[in-house]
């Protein structure tokens, strides 16, 4: 057995142990910490599966930004909620659930073991047309060229989720700022960390988007890092969460989708149809769309974490 297999078996066991801890542990806070660790371990698993782009996105979105969201929610629920007692499911229900879940796991494992060999793959055609896009990273080519419509619609889903979250605001707070952030001690470690880390993080996020054309990276991982930096700024109190009816904020939020749609419609004029790119100019257009997208994604993710407006505009 090669050392790679030993590493993968150990990693898989560790992932399962942390997932079991996340599901089973009594305290909510411990469960969230377990979930963040789980996300980071999963990104290692993605590396083992030769998917570095997914690994970056999983680490940044699945572990990082989701972790920040869940920790914030956990803190707000924990302060006032008493632990839920008295409605634990009975033994029969637990046994039935156990049988059901074990059956589904066994079925899925069977499917994985019985997958057709050789596996069907779209890698050769993806590689074949890579030259036409001018990109070096096939995953970015799928996201931004072959299946650009999916990515466009996903951006719309992100915006819709933000609209849905905002719409949960009580009437009196509409148009105000999200009630997010703390008042840490001035001169404390959090403020120091923010001052040191945010400039580095902003550069790292933009760098990830820039190299994503040819190497692992991309707009989603880069946008998630920008979002993390914004969240750090909000938490430390060094930057203020923008009011939801601000014009500049809304401009940044819709810029990505707008540029994407305009470039898509221009495809009718300069190429064969919606979201088609003219020969030889695909890469600069893709980079332009991604540049607009990375700031929109960063702002949307950060505001999804910040939640609905909870402070009125005039203090």
């Amino acid at each position, binding site marked *: 057995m090669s050392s790679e297999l030993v590493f993968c078996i150990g990693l898989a066991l560790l992932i399962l142990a942390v997932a079991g801890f*996340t599901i089973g542990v009594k305290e909510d806070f411990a469960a969230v910490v377990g979930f963040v660790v789980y996300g980071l371990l999963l990104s290692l698993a993605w590396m083992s599966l030769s998917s570095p782009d997914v690994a970056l996105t999983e680490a940044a979105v699945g572990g990082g930004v989701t972790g920040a969201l869940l920790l914030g929610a956990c803190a707000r629920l924990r302060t006032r909620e008493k632990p839920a007692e008295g409605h634990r499911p009975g033994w029969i229900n637990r046994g039935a659930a156990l049988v059901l879940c074990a059956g589904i796991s066994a079925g899925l494992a069977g499917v*994985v073991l019985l997958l057709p060999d050789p596996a069907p793959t779209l890698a050769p055609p993806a590689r074949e047309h890579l030259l036409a896009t001018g990109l070096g990273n096939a995953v970015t080519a799928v996201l931004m060229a072959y299946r650009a419509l999916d990515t466009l619609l996903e951006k719309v889903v992100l915006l819709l989720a933000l609209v849905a979250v905002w719409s949960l605001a009580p009437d009196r707070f509409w148009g105000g700022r999200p009630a997010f952030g703390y008042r840490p001690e001035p001169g404390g470690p959090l403020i120091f960390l923010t001052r040191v880390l945010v400039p580095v993080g902003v550069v790292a996020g933009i760098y990830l988007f820039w190299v994503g054309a040819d190497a692992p990276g991309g707009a989603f991982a880069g946008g998630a890092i920008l979002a993390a930096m914004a969240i750090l700024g909000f938490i430390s109190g060094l930057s203020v969460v923008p009011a939801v009816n601000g014009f500049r904020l809304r401009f940044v939020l819709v810029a990505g989708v707008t540029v994407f749609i305009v470039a898509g419609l221009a495809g009718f004029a300069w190429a064969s149809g919606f979201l088609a790119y003219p020969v030889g100019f695909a890469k600069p257009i893709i980079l332009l769309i991604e540049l607009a997208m990375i700031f929109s994604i960063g702002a949307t993710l950060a505001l999804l974490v910040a939640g609905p407006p909870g402070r009125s505009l005039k203090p």
Partner: protein
Amino acid sequence: MSVATIFGICAAILVGFGLFGLILQSQPFRKILAFNVLGSGIFLSFGVVARRGAAAGMGGDPIPQALVITGIVVAFSATALAVAILLRLFEETGGTSLQDDAPKGSKSEEADD
């Protein structure tokens, strides 16, 4: 035994873990967490499909990888919406119970999880 098989079985067990938590956890916050574990198990099994499709000098089929990246971001936005609904329910009713004796309306709101 290959890397893909190991993580394929791992993904299958993760789906079972997540579903178990989703059914048996009584607090909605923990149901959201369990739902995320369930979802990541499904993503991972799709990653196994991508790895098995390695060809043309690439470590994996790029199409499933791109779909999983999209999926992770959409899963995050759904989680953010679920958490926002949960916090709003908590503000309105002072609790997050899904039991039948909970205040009217709480059940239908949580159904969006």
